[in-house]
């Protein structure tokens, strides 16, 4: 194949200034723009949706209530009764990531969760919060978390090392999971879309053959919708599990 037919799979993640010269001078990129849009959409959904306060909810109100209920149940199931205190945090995290993933699937938009800087920032907030909560509740007793009760004392160097490493690798795996899922999904879109263009270059047979990758991209879009919701859910559930560990220590 000719060399000029290489697939530029990562070009879609490049940041550029938006909103003309004002945006360029303050470094306001597509990523920031999408974050603002996501925040406005969430706030809009909650304010407009809940303004009716009907006993029998309409569509918007039902959506807002379901979102609220879902995260509320998740907090209480995973953390316990103390979970109510962390509900606002988990709800913010969940809706921000969910909207980021879903908005990124629209054509000509940008997925801010596809940047490791964003996801690692979120994961760092989570891990700092978890550690601070654990220290605030248990004080220095928190460090017993790294050595489970009843384990043989001779094994302590090994167990403590492993536990500390696993504790510190939490933000890394949390952020890479979300970021890699989003990047992998969008790269697959790009690759199959390039196949369509390459096929179209081959004449009439190519036009017919191009239907294959196009159909695959349609299927992939459905799969990516699932992944977008699933990854937001997984991020929120893991946050809840870490908070459970912080509140209850094992």
């Amino acid at each position, binding site marked *: 194949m000719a060399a000029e037919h290489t697939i530029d*799979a*990562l070009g879609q993640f490049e940041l550029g200034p938006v909103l003309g010269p004002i945006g360029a001078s303050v470094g306001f990129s597509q990523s920031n723009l999408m974050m603002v849009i996501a925040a406005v959409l969430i706030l809009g959904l909650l304010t407009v949706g809940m303004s009716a306060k009907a006993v029998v909810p309409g569509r918007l109100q039902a959506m807002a209530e379901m979102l609220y209920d879902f995260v509320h149940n998740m907090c209480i199931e995973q953390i316990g009764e103390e979970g109510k205190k962390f509900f606002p945090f988990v709800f913010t995290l969940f809706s921000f990531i969910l909207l980021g993933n879903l908005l990124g699937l629209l054509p000509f938009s940008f997925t801010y969760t596809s940047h490791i800087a964003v996801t690692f920032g979120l994961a760092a907030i989570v891990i700092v919060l978890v550690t601070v909560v654990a220290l605030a509740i248990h004080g220095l007793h928190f460090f017993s978390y790294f050595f489970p009760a009843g384990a043989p004392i001779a094994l302590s160097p090994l167990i403590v090392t492993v536990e500390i490493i696993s504790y510190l690798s939490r933000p890394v*795996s949390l952020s*890479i*999971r979300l970021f*890699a*899922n989003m*990047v*992998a999904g969008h*790269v697959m879109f790009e690759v199959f879309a390039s196949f369509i263009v390459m096929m179209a270059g081959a004449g009439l047979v190519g036009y017919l053959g191009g239907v294959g990758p196009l159909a695959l991209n349609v299927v992939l879009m459905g799969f990516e919708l699932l992944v977008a919701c*699933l*990854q937001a*859910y*997984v991020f929120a*559930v893991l946050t809840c599990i870490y908070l459970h560990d912080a509140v209850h220590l094992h």
Partner: protein
Amino acid sequence: MEVAAAKALGAGIAVIALAGVGIGIGNIFSSLVSSVARNPSARDQVFGLGILGFALTEAVALFALLIAFLILFT
């Protein structure tokens, strides 16, 4: 060996890890199906756990995929 060829080979080797992930995800869903078949009333609780396990396993696949992308595109 040409660098481009070595890159393509390296990316191919990097995704061998997906074999293990395939086994893992198959395991998760086979036990999910059999546990729901044994006790259908536990479906809601077990389903959440299964999806969580799926996501954690899939993450390993994505680490491998990410390395492959890094080799190919940088």
